[in-house]
């Protein structure tokens, strides 16, 4: 204070109008020591029941998967997590290379050529993808599947409404849950900017007509956007192999814990096509060399698309993203490698199939409702049991089992149905326990 010639700190706030100054202390708790903070936070959080306390069969956009220890320790390197966006590339080579490798691995698993270094989550990535397609094609309609996560759809509406984009849903085959291709053919037109499909679909089934859909979409000059759960891509055909122009998805399963639904990791990839690349939202890292051309290095590329340079003409407003989650995913994919991804996919397929077979044996339970192949999620219907999905949920909870997501309201046409999820984290005992509990519950009188 002496050096800058002031007697009191208040002098530095002299230009704040007197009438606005806060004349009291903020109404907040008193300062606490680290030990007290720890105890209090632990006590509050101990009111939560976790996957450790009971098997939880929830998915629907955020999934329980195992996070290897080496992923956790890597992203705890403080040089990485206490750094900012790599605006000084020479000082941030570590983060930049890690993000470049993340982009590269996303390209490998999706069979695309370009990826950005993250969006907030799947839902916002979808919003940005549909906006991007509209900018690129100068068209204003998007077709989405009727079977879609309602919150993802709602986010898409929020993102696209200001641009005047019209969203229309394409129905599904009630037998199989597959996209109704005839309905798509009727609805697609020269006004369609993009068509969006998910694989696996929201209700778990694998969309096998992807190639045909792609042909129809491209036949109308529209862009084909595919949404993925990346952990399925060790066993499922990558969207780049069936004509996707843009791939979005939720990267959380790749090495990021559930954290009550955030932070998540929005995957965003596209083909190597300058028309697409110039419209890409968000940051992307490129490989380059030193000015003298001698050494390979990394820096952010195509910054002229971004808000800090292009301002209101930017391709997106995104600045802070989910970089550290992207690094976690890169470490995860590097640890698993090609064979690990395949084996993990197969293990999930097996366990989910096992759960479906076990539950299907229970009187009155129908699972899955669609005659299609399923990855890790599947519908369980209770119409023939005389109990509602909510009722079943309540009774399962009493038995320390958390059932799937009740979708009776989301899809009234599917009746009393819940969406269950089984991953490599569920043991055989967990699944057996679910089946036994369900059996007992359904024998109970309502």
């Amino acid at each position, binding site marked *: 204070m002496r050096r800058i010639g002031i007697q009191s*700190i208040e002098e*530095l706030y*002299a*230009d*704040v*109008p007197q009438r*606005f100054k*806060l004349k009291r202390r903020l109404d*907040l708790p008193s*300062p606490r020591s*680290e030990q007290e903070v*720890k105890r209090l*936070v*632990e006590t509050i*959080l101990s009111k*939560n029941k976790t*996957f450790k306390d009971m098997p939880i069969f*929830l998915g629907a956009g*955020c999934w329980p998967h195992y996070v290897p220890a080496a992923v956790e320790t*890597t992203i705890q390197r403080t040089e*990485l997590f*206490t750094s900012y966006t*790599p605006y000084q*590339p*020479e000082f941030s*080579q*570590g983060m930049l*290379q890690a993000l470049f490798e993340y982009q590269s691995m996303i390209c*490998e698993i999706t069979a695309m050529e*370009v*990826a950005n270094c993250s969006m907030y989550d799947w839902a*916002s990535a979808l919003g940005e993808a549909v906006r991007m397609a509209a900018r690129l094609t100068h068209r204003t309609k998007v077709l989405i599947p009727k079977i879609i996560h309602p*919150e993802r759809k709602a986010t898409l509406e*929020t993102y696209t409404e200001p641009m005047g984009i019209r969203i229309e849903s394409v129905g599904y085959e009630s037998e199989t849950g597959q996209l109704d291709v005839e309905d798509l053919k009727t609805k697609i037109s020269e006004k369609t900017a993009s068509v969006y499909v998910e694989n696996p679909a929201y209700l778990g089934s*694998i969309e096998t007509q992807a190639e045909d859909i792609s042909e129809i979409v491209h036949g109308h000059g529209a862009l084909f956007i595919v949404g993925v759960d990346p952990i399925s891509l060790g066993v499922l055909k*990558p969207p780049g192999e069936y004509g996707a122009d843009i791939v979005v998805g939720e990267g959380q399963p790749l090495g990021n814990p559930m*954290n009550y*639904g*955030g*932070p998540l990791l929005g995957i965003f990839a596209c083909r*190597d096509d300058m028309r697409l690349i110039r419209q890409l939202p968000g940051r992307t890292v490129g490989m380059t060399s*030193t000015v003298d051309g001698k*050494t390979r290095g990394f820096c952010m590329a*195509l910054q002229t698309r971004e808000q800090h340079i292009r301002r*209101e003409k930017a391709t997106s*407003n995104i*600045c*802070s*993203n*989910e*970089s*550290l989650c992207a690094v976690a995913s890169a*470490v995860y994919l590097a640890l698993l490698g*090609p064979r690990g991804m*395949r084996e993990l996919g197969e293990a999930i*397929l097996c*366990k989910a199939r096992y759960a479906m*077979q076990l539950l299907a044996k229970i009187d009155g339970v129908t699972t899955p409702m669609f005659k299609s192949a399923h990855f890790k999620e599947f519908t369980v219907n209770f119409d023939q049991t005389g109990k509602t999905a909510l009722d079943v*949920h309540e009774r399962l909870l009493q038995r320390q089992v958390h059932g799937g997501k009740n979708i009776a309201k989301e899809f009234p046409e599917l009746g009393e149905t819940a969406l269950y999820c089984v991953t490599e984290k569920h043991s*055989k005992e967990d699944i057996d326990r679910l089946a036994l509990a369900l059996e007992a519950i359904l024998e109970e009188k309502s």
Partner: protein
Amino acid sequence: MFRQARWDERIIFELGRSGRRGCTIPKVKKEIQRVVGDTKAFVPEKLRRKTFPKLPELSEVEVVRHYVRLSQMNFGVDSGFYPLGSCTMKYNPKIDEVLAKLPSITLIHPYQDERTVQGVLEAMYRLSRWLAEITGTHDVSLQPAAGAHGEFLGTLIMRAYHKLNDEPEKRTELIVPDSAHGTNPASGAMAGFKIVVVPSDEDGCVDLEALRAAVSERTAGLMLTNPNTLGIFEKNIEEIAKIVHEAGGLLYYDGANLNAILGKVRPGDMGFDIVHMNIHKTFGTPHGGGGPGAGPIGVSEELEKFLPIPRIVFDGKRYRLDYDKPYSVGKIRGFYGNVGVLLKAFAYILGLGAEGLEEVAEISVLNANYIMKKLEKIRGFCLPYARGRPRKHECVISAKKLYKETGIGALNVSKRILDYGMHAPTVYFPLIVDEALMIEPTESFEKEELDRFVEVMKKISDEAYSTPDVVLEAPKNAAITRLDEAKASHPKTMALSWKMYLKKSKR
């Protein structure tokens, strides 16, 4: 002498060897296999992946070593002084990290029955109440994932507000000052507004006359950072609020610089209707090399009904999620927000309390003014706008004179700072300052560190006048020498993935 680690670290795809594994997947039990049969049959031929993804094949130790080396070629707040203006690179308390790793937060699912997640709902509810108190707003939504996401939400709320007043077609213009962050106009444009830019006056503040001329019945609102990006408090804020409100617009507060005024003055009290906070700036959560952050939004009582669903509510006994909000702008993301980040802010505020937060503001402002006084005396640098007026948490100096006299501008200065083992300030922003260096020391660094930075700036000035080549050739001590950034963006040489690089190098 500072030297950043310089590993000749290859791309991960070039490491390892075919067949190596970094982790194993638990074998599916025989009992399960027996029941389900052959997995091949589970996926229809048409959708089966035929070839393995070309991921790297490494052992666990190879993976770990690779990323440890990469981390050593990265500079964070824990590595040293990081005066990146507008980014508030403060220390991230380690206890917050420890708490955010508790299984009682990491292992809970967002669709769990509310009765099984009372702990996290309580923490989030209390945090939202504290943030409302800190910003002087009525209610806070924790959902936005970042500051810009909060801005997008804020401008959508403006839209919804005017729509409800039957003015959606009319209120098409959003005003931003020329000193605003790039996200402001970008967010407004995303929400469908036409951006109108108002110039700054000679003090670097909003030009009141220009603002009066800019507002009209088309004005939806004004987005303002206060203290602004020059670190100067908009002393005419009362008048600004009056002009905007009388024109029927809403006032939006960009919270990037909230650190300077914690416990001193509240945006809500100044007349702001919508406020975003950057949790990763003001409330001590790490920036993660670019994210994840969190950008909660606080709003006035009148605007509460527009906040995204669901809202966390408390009936005195239980916390629950309320989806019944007919006026809500809807959803802006999946689930409820970056809870893992927000929990760290909960612990941060719990530790500091009201007194601690106020001290944060005071010391950050004191540090900025201390540095400013010392820097403006250095040859080649000057302090544009409002000389003699105190700055808040950051100051912007111009290297215009240095550039004129030596050919060394802000970019070269910033690269040379790296050689001395410090991160550079933000450069070339705000746009209204030539050769800008935007310096935000935060409260986290001691006087000795600030003095060392001033010493470094003096040295660089001397070098610019005596041995300009050492500055022009900087950095020499970073992990790599100056990079060719244009090459990374040129269509011919652009490589945004390993695959793309291989494809281009084959040609």
